[in-house]
């Protein structure tokens, strides 16, 4: 155990959410998005569910997903603004992860349509979504345990010639591209301060390091939009600040971030816009400061009346 903490400590020096800036990394994708303008444009957006944004990158309409009799997600309309960090919050069972799966085509909605960058993605299989410039991470981190950290990273690169069966037996066809991918992966590892773990099996990493690896690996895709499902879950507090710094770093390079999170402190600290779900529906939207006072949100988290809360107490 002490060993694991030592590994964490090695990652801590980067503490402070904005401290990513001193590390210039060419490997990190950079998009030509005026982040400041995108953020300030949000001030014009009304604080209401389904509000339309000035420059949405992702739009979903009438998305419904039922599991038997249970309607897990029923979203009339939602837009995600380009170039900002949007948080998706809500109590347990609100349908956040299900919506996430629907937006990334890992699950198929019963009805509804989704547009990414103006293109309909309803019929696009999940594995092609990365090619559109949208990449996701998972609530239960999916580090590929029996592959080394650098192999994990290299996997993320898209359009690899050596990934075709026939080319794979002729290294001369893909060696050059492989070297480029490897150097990009190494730069990203340096940026995420994981270069000393390069040749370790990903299975030996701690929970927080796996989250970092998953995020770094996602960046190998060079996505325009990064979808993070509970990036802070199970992460040691010492590593939280560093992870937060990386998330804001993505935005400052013009990437759009949508993340699901339970930790309200994190939501307050880094998000530019918050979408609140409860019982499958979007019940509120607004800047992080506005959410705490929203009556619908308070009701969703705490129950709509004290009576029902008391009833629950007596019933059990």
């Amino acid at each position: 155990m002490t060993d694991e903490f030592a590994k964490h400590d090695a990652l801590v020096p980067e503490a402070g959410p904005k401290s990513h800036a001193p590390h210039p990394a060419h490997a990190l994708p950079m998009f030509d998005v005026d982040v400041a303008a995108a953020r300030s444009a949000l001030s014009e957006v009304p604080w209401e569910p389904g509000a339309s944004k000035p420059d949405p990158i992702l739009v979903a309409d009438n998305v419904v997903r039922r599991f038997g009799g249970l309607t897990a997600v029923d979203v009339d309309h939602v837009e995600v603004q380009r170039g900002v960090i949007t948080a998706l919050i809500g109590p347990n069972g609100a349908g956040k992860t299900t919506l996430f799966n629907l937006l990334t085509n890992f699950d198929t909605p019963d009805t509804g349509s989704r547009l990414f960058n103006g293109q309909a993605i309803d019929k696009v299989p999940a594995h092609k979504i990365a090619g559109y410039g949208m990449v996701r991470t998972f609530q239960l981190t999916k580090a590929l345990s029996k592959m080394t950290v650098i192999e994990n990273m290299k996997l993320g690169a898209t359009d690899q010639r050596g990934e075709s069966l026939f080319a794979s037996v002729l290294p001369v066809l893909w060696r050059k591209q492989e070297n480029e991918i490897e150097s990009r992966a190494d730069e990203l590892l340096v940026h995420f301060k994981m270069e000393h773990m390069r040749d370790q099996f990903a299975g030996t990493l701690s929970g927080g390091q796996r989250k970092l690896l998953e995020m770094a690996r996602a960046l190998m895709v060079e996505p325009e939009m990064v979808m993070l499902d509970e990036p802070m879950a199970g992460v040691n507090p010492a590593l939280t600040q560093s992870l937060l710094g990386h998330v804001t770093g993505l935005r400052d390079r013009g990437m759009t971030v949508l993340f699901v999170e339970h930790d309200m402190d994190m939501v307050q600290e880094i998000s530019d816009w918050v979408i609140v779900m409860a019982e499958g529906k979007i019940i509120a939207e607004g800047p992080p400061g506005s959410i705490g006072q929203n009556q619908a949100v308070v009701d969703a988290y705490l129950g709509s009346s004290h009576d029902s809360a008391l009833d629950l107490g007596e019933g059990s």
Partner: protein
Amino acid sequence: MDYQAIIESLFRGLIGERFIVFALAAIGLNLHFGYTGLLNFGQAVFMAAGAYGLAMMVATVGPRLNENTGLNMSETTLFWVGVFTAVVVFPILFALVMGIPTLRLRADYLAIVTIAVAEIFRIVARSPRFDWLTGSSDGLTGFSGTFYDLSPFSTTGRYFFNLFTGNQFFLVLVGWTILAIGTTICWLLVRSPWGRVLKAIREDEDAARSLGKNAYSYKMQALILGGMFGAVGGMVRAVGFSVAQPDNFITDVTFFVWVALILGGAGKVFGPLVGAALLYAVLDSSDTVLRQLVENDYIPSSFMSGTQVGQVRFMIVGLGLVLLAAFRPQGIFGNKEEMALDDR
């Protein structure tokens, strides 16, 4: 005690025909299970596909084709068409039949379907209804002539320390060559980005998908390719014994392939070779040793008779497997630390 016979049986097991057959099949299974995580419990059907692909083309389908179409292919032509059918056409066909319905589902569905398809094929091949096509339970013979005509070795001489006859030695030499090529291809594949995607799918399919890899397509490619290795193994077996018989491809055969793979270490390029060599060295030599012990009354006949030797040697292999599972679960080539990562 006839020590020479013991040593001969040991070496035949280590490098002989059955080693080649099972090593090839295990290379295929290694691509399936060791690298892609596919649970294929029907490797025997790919081996049968190889055996029957060749045998049927030369012995039953080919002559009928000649009769009905006037193509007049010679036996040599039929042999090479048969080899193509055995190594390319049949494995692709079987892999598609088994993979299309199951590869989108959880891993266990493929396991169920492969074991079922293997048995269905064997039972259909056995049925008198298809006697004209598969020779039913007697199987097919008379298809390996073209192969042995190519042999430069005398049919009456003994080769390689008197271990093999001329024909056997030719088969073994060709088999070793195929094994060397196959292992090299496998080695190139798993070190390439293609192999990296396979490993990623083994570790977590959804993660691979989120990074833009078409898991379904890669699993199908692995199933086909591994099946082709199995088919080459089955074909070598059919040519080696000059017969393709349904009961040569019972479920046990699949599990011998699994034993060879696990002994050697799944997910390692040389695992299947070492595993198959060791398995047949133990099986063949223990057979000879036990027989000699019984014949020379070192083992009393009240304890074990000569006819029981065949079963007892499997007990020995079983005991060896139990010990392996207890003390070296990763196999001979496996990496224990890598294996331990599963538990985290």
